[in-house]
């Protein structure tokens, strides 16, 4: 049932959003573990260990998916032209870029896929740059997944860029083999009064006793949601959920998703937030999903968090706005 739903979502996504992407015959390798698009790259603890550190490099949503497959050999997900190949230096005296062995392939309709964290095959590395000879066919071996930079050992990464529309596409929509029966977990939802940012935000999950109202002042509130999803049952990685919808008194107030990230001069924009991507996340790791104006009176708020297979978790709360 769920997989039927997933196929339907994939189809709608392809038709409505990606347009011609379906034509490029793109195959995301079947994985035993996935960290999905939008998942925070570095955990808060590891990136904030030093007091002097004013910013937290890596505390951003990921623009790729990290995968671990049963076998380390990684094949080209689609045919195209190699436009960039990157290999780790064989000696430590020469700097290597963090993504390790990487191949960027230009596909029809101006899509670029980027596969990283590989021990790149010498053949793939050397054939590039020779005019017509730098084309690759779907399914040819590109190398072994060894991990690098943001990919742990035996993991590799996959990114998909729509150059024409300046978008980073969530590659999970092309993983037709996904079978997810577990709903995402809503850890908490916060409402932050935009006019009183210094005040403690209202926590919907912990301060909403059943049948009682949460009292708050009339204002516009920023809504942030902490939620995780396990895409592959039993895997060790947690991912960002796919879609977050906020209903206020039965009407949709916020509808946002990790369908894609938009390229801006300052970096990437997630969930409609301004770039750089760090602006989509609060210090506690919650996603900024949008704003809702709360007028005086009683209100019912419903937070719906869905995953790629359509599994959904709901958090409801009653508000008394003074």
């Amino acid at each position: 049932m769920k997989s039927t739903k997933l196929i339907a979502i994939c189809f709608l996504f392809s038709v409505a959003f990606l347009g011609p992407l379906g034509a490029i015959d793109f195959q995301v390798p079947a994985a035993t573990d996935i960290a999905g698009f939008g998942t925070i790259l570095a955990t808060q603890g590891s990136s904030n260990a030093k007091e002097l550190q004013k910013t937290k490099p890596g505390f951003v949503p990921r623009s790729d998916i990290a995968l671990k497959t049963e076998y380390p050999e990684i094949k080209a997900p689609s045919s195209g032209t190699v436009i960039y190949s990157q290999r780790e230096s064989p000696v430590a005296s020469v700097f290597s870029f963090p993504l390790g062995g990487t191949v960027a392939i230009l596909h029809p309709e101006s899509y670029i896929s980027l596969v990283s964290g590989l021990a790149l095959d010498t053949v793939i590395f050397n054939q590039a740059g020779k005019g017509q000879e730098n084309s690759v066919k779907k399914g040819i071996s590109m190398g072994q997944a060894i991990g690098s930079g943001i990919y742990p050992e035996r993991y590799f990464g996959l990114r998909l860029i729509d150059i024409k529309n300046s978008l980073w596409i969530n590659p999970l929509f092309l993983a037709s083999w996904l079978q997810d029966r577990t709903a995402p977990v809503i850890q908490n939802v916060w409402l932050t009064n935009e006019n009183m940012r210094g005040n403690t935000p209202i926590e919907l999950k912990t301060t909403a006793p059943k049948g009682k109202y949460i009292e708050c002042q009339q204002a516009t509130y920023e809504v942030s949601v902490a939620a995780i999803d396990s895409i592959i049952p039993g895997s060790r990685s947690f991912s960002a959920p796919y879609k977050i919808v906020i209903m206020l008194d039965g009407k949709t107030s916020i509808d946002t998703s990790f369908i894609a990230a938009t390229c801006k001069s300052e970096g990437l924009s997630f969930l409609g937030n301004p770039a750089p991507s760090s602006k989509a996340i609060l210090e506690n790791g919650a996603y900024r999903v949008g704003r809702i104006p709360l007028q005086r009176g009683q209100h019912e708020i419903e937070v719906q968090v869905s995953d790629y297979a359509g599994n959904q978790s709901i958090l409801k709360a009653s508000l008394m706005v003074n």
Partner: protein
Amino acid sequence: MHHRNEMKKRRFHIFAFIVAAVLFVLLSVRGTKKQEQISEAIFLPFSSALDPASISRQNPSPSLISFLGDGYLGYIDSANNQLYAAQFSDRAAIDSSGWISYDRLATALQAFSLGSKPSTIAGYGYPWFKSSRRFLIRADQMGIAEMHTDGSIVWEREFPMPITAIDATPTTLGIGFLDGSIRFLEKKAQNLYSEPHDSQQDSQHIRTVYGIALSGDGRYTAVLRGISPQKIESYRRAGTGFVKSSERELPSGAPLQATMCYAEDGSHVVIAQGEQLIYYNTKKNYVRKLANGAASSNVASGAFVQHFVLGPTGGNTIAVLQVQSQNPPTTKVLILKHGIIEREEPGAVSASAGKGALIIVFRDGVEIVKGWQQ
């Protein structure tokens, strides 16, 4: 009478011969003066190296030259022929203030400052040091930060495309991207110049940037990009930004990843791409593919050769590392003077220069070539 004239002629010839001989000797001495200056080469093994922790931060020797090898890093006191070295297990970056060692996952950054205790730096990227500046390239290659020596972040920038090329001077940072766009940032990361990719006009012709090199004074830059054709494009500083001054097509057929740098005197750029080594004369705007025989002498048949530009070694010289993928892999450092081999150092893994000395780094020690002035 006739006899006297003959004698005079003979005396004149002898005198002219003596003058010519003296001039020849003098000129010969002048011509070989440089060779005499670099006649002293001292090898210092790592087994006899001192601990770099013994270098005082308050009183560092003015003649210290940092080096990064393959498993060893440290400093050379060329005036006192002293080697300070430490081992590192994975990767590292070093400058005159200390070094940072890190692993593939960029989560365990260990900072060593001269005269201070080691510390852990919170970071999520690969440290990259250039021109007395310390950068952290974010682990997903989508951002860069500049750090103080204590690891604190000065500024941080994110980009909409992965970084594929980078170079820096004390005043300018040049970055190239996967989609062919380039950006030059000033000291506080404000845009000096940017050339974005026009997604609407040119979406099927991506001209990825494979290499970028800035001249030492930050006034000139060379950008390597595109496949068919692949071009090297020159930019020069104009007012507060940069303008393109020339471009040149390059021979095709090389892997799509490059290392490149300007010579210290700004006369030329050397580009390394896999087996290929290219000399680009920036003054006269011509390129020369360095002949395989010259650049890759003694290469075993069937071996895959990779070249990496290590950096300028003073004047008109540039150090290049050659790695042959034999089993085991063999390395060699080439010092190129205007693209012509000046020195070959088989077995070496790195080179650096400064304070009138050239440092050649081997796996078991370091050679100091004194009087290195090009």
